[in-house]
């Protein structure tokens, strides 16, 4: 009976305030739906079983977390906005003689209705688009489309539970605020006039310092590996700086303008400057959030698009500019018992044996080996001091990498000539060199002209033609190739290094360090496409491994205590893996960008509404004081445009500063093409600006309807 009345009142309130409730419910629906999709994607085994798709659940889980965080923020944002607008109405009920308890009932029903609608429609929406998302992912991953309707009851429950808890928390907060407010306060608000914004000097200094530090870090990052921790440091600093400067900097700047009498007391400027001062006070947080979200969208989209579209190129570059299809690395290991302890020895298999068994394996899968070239090397990070190079041990990824640290890939001359097709000769005692990246300076900047590694002294000689190599580990610093006269020389270096490492770390069981030659062979096959169809990388490599092991047993090794290792790195395997990874990252980028854009639109919409009501009064006064309607509209439009485009401009500036770091991060992911990234970034910025403009146009319409 009575509850029924409250329920009906709540219904009619929602209908009456649809301008506020529709976006609130839409936001809830959208976020619930996207969260459900992300969660299900992270748990869908069918995706995990896609060739190379093992990373998909992890990637989607990241998406889940981001959406969850954003959901909490947005739900509380729309909720608090809603409450601010409704407070007067609740106060009215209270003044008209309704008990607070009863106002609370009405509020409860309002919250309940909007929550139920949001969650139910959200989950249904999620289920509907899930299939679409799956199809889209399969398209992007270049795999056959997964069909069939898929619902994971667990995911449904988790989604409903999570969002219900969030809305419950929001309701309790509202109820708490209602209980604490006195009717007078409930009714007050209009007509009190807002206080003049003060410049918060401390915040201003913090903002300048953090933004400056963030930019400085971003602009001075030298090496890709350091880019990772520094990037996150910079991101956090820039976020803090953006908020602080939007809050304090904008007001300080406008006040400075107001101090300048010659500038301020002009027709065009006077109203704009003072009004902007108040607009910034009210909207700084919202605008800063938009700037951050916009930057997020631009960074996500430009990088994921770039990685995704550059996949083929990355693969080509990795496989010696397309001169190779498979890298094979092998060694044998033999274990024996010594004084009650097991010790193992690594040993190399002869080149001819590897070649023979490899040809056998490839033939079995229906293709043929076209070329087989050894590419033996030692790849490691070295630190040079007094002309002596030692293997550099990073203690932690956050540690500063000292001067004189460089990554070297040491290759014997015969292998270099074999792969590059050159016929380089070396002077006595000299080594050839090349830089992997065209940006790198001369090698002598870090490595002394005369140097020793592993007790072998060498002199830096001529620069030779660059090999399109990808270092085994991530780029730590500038990476150079060093060409030594022979395999024997390389082995001597490795032996020397091993001795040094043993002396330094031998007693310490925490370190099990040794240097070793990578016996890698670059293999080209007749028909890689065909192999890509029949092989899921593991199959061929395990066949090859079995042949190697059998051969070792034939050669008299103990069957049980001997292992043959074959690392098999094929272009088709890499293609599957990269497409799975970059494709799902790209998908995540798109989905998150849509959520971010949606959040942006929501913030702008609410901003326009709340400003619209304020501006209506100002608009009328200005006309009474003697401005034409056209002039008034002009000033207001100009302000709105400034406020509107401030976040966009901020985002673009952030992106410009972040550009070099992101480029370095992409190198870490083996994305070599700078032009492509520049293109992707430019395209993303333009696309984002266009969408942003559309959002502006749509919300501005609501605004002008209110003002008129």
């Amino acid at each position, binding site marked *: 009976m009575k509850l029924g009345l409250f329920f009906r009142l709540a219904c009619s309130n929602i209908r009456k305030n649809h301008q506020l409730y529709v976006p609130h419910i839409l936001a809830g629906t959208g976020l619930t739906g996207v969260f459900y999709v992300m969660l299900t994607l992270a748990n869908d085994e069918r995706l995990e079983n896609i060739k190379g798709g093992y990373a998909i659940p992890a990637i989607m889980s990241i998406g889940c977390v981001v959406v969850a965080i954003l959901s909490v923020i947005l739900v509380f944002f729309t909720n608090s906005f809603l409450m601010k607008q409704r407070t007067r109405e609740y106060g009215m009920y209270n003044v008209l003689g309704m008990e607070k308890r009863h106002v609370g009932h009405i509020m409860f029903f309002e919250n309940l209705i909007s929550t139920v609608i949001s969650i139910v429609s959200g989950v249904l929406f999620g289920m509907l688009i899930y299939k679409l998302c799956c199809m889209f992912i399969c398209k992007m991953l270049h795999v056959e489309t997964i069909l069939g309707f898929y619902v994971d009851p667990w995911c449904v429950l988790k989604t409903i539970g999570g969002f219900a808890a969030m809305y419950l928390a929001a309701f309790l907060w509202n109820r708490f605020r209602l209980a604490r407010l006195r009717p007078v306060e409930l009714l007050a608000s209009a007509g009190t006039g807002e206080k003049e914004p003060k410049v918060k000097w401390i915040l201003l200094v913090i903002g300048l310092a953090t933004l400056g530090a963030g930019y400085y870090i971003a602009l001075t990052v030298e090496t890709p590996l350091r880019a990772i921790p520094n990037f996150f440091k910079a991101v956090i600093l820039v976020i803090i700086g953006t908020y602080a400067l939007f809050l304090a900097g904008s007001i300080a700047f406008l006040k400075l303008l107001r101090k300048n009498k010659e500038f301020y007391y002009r*027709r065009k400027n006077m*109203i704009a400057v*003072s009004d902007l001062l108040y607009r910034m006070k009210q909207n700084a947080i919202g605008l800063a959030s938009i700037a951050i979200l916009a930057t997020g969208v631009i960074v996500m989209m430009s990088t994921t698009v770039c990685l995704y579209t550059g996949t083929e190129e990355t693969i080509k570059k990795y496989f010696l500019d397309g001169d190779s299809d498979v890298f094979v690395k092998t060694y044998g290991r033999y274990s024996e018992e010594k004084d009650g302890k097991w010790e193992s020895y690594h040993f190399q298999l002869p080149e001819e044996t590897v070649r023979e068994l490899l040809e056998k394996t490839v033939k079995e899968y229906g293709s043929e080996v076209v070329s087989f070239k050894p590419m033996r090397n030692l790849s490691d990070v070295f630190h040079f001091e007094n002309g002596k190079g030692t293997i550099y041990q990073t203690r932690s990824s956050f540690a500063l990498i000292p001067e004189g640290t460089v990554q070297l890939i040491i290759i014997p001359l015969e292998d270099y000539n074999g792969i590059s097709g050159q016929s380089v000769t070396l002077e006595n005692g000299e080594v050839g060199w090349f830089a992997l990246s065209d940006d790198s300076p001369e090698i002598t900047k870090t490595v002394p002209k005369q140097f020793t590694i592993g007790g072998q002294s060498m002199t830096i000689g001529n620069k030779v033609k660059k090999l399109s190599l990808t270092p085994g580990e991530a780029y730590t610093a500038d990476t150079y190739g060093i060409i030594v006269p022979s395999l024997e020389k390389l082995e001597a270096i490795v032996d020397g290094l091993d001795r040094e490492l043993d002396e330094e770390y031998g007693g310490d069981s925490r370190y099990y360090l040794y240097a070793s030659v990578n016996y890698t062979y670059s293999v080209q096959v007749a028909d890689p496409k065909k192999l890509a169809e029949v092989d899921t990388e593991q199959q061929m490599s395990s066949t090859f491994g079995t042949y190697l092991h059998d051969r070792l047993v034939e050669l008299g090794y103990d069957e049980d205590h001997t292992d043959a290792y074959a690392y098999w790195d094929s272009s088709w395997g890499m293609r599957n893996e990269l497409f799975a990874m970059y494709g799902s990252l790209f998908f995540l980028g798109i989905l998150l960008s849509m959520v971010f854009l949606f959040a942006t639109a929501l913030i702008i919409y609410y901003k326009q509404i709340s400003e619209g009501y304020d501006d209506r009064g*100002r608009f009328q006064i200005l006309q009474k*004081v*003697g401005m034409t309607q056209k002039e008034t509209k002009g000033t207001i439009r100009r302000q709105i445009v400034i406020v509107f485009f401030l976040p966009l401009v901020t985002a673009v500036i952030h992106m410009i500063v972040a550009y070099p770091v992101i480029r370095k991060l992409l190198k870490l992911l083996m994305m070599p093409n700078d032009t492509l990234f520049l293109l992707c970034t430019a395209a993303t910025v333009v696309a984002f600006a266009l969408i942003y403009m559309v959002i502006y146009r749509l919300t501005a319409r609501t605004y002008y309807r209110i003002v008129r």
Partner: protein
Amino acid sequence: MSILEVSNLKKIYTTRFGGNKVQALTNVTFTVEKGEYVAIMGESGSGKTTLLNILAALDRPTAGKVILEGKELSGIKESEMATFRRENLGFVFQEFNLLDTFSIRDNILLPLVLNGAKPSELEGKLQPIAERLGISDLLAKFPYEVSGGQKQRTAVARALITDPKLILADEPTGALDSKSTDDLLRVFRDINSQGQTILMVTHSTKAASHASRVLFIRDGEVFHQIYRGDCTNEQLYQKISDTLTLLTTGGEKR
């Protein structure tokens, strides 16, 4: 010489949905001489604000003419209207209509700035007016920091700063207590004695008793008018009270 001539003014409001029509002004005719201080009285809903809005060119009449200093308002183009209003008219409203984003100083200076005055000239014009109105100490404050009477004096300063030919005031004392009302009426009398023409709508007999002439409006027409002549404020007050009694008891037209 008459500064304002109003003849046969008529205003019919059409409600938003078309149907209902409200006749706010039926036939209003009167003139105001230069230097006069005219009060307009009448019951609520008799059309006073409507009249003032038309005089201020904020609204257009349905029929009739308004001539300000020999210039007919309906002949002024929409685009020039705002400039005309800024240069010739000053307004004081019941709800002050100050911009809360502006300091008191900026609120007063706004019309001058809109007129394109040089920034260097502003202070010279502001100081004497602020002093006369007793708000020199408040210039740096914001509207929410000052009292209602001070707000209204700010509004008067804003109206005066452009040296308007005519000041229009709509119930300027409506939101003030009696002390502030007295202050404001003194200000009005001062500026009137210096030659400023004032047209003031008011409900307050006391306010009207300061004027040199009182017009009574009923049913959208000028029903009656009283000239001060040699009367003191008290005598005029009595005359106005009598007329008002007559008005409410529904006496015959003059």
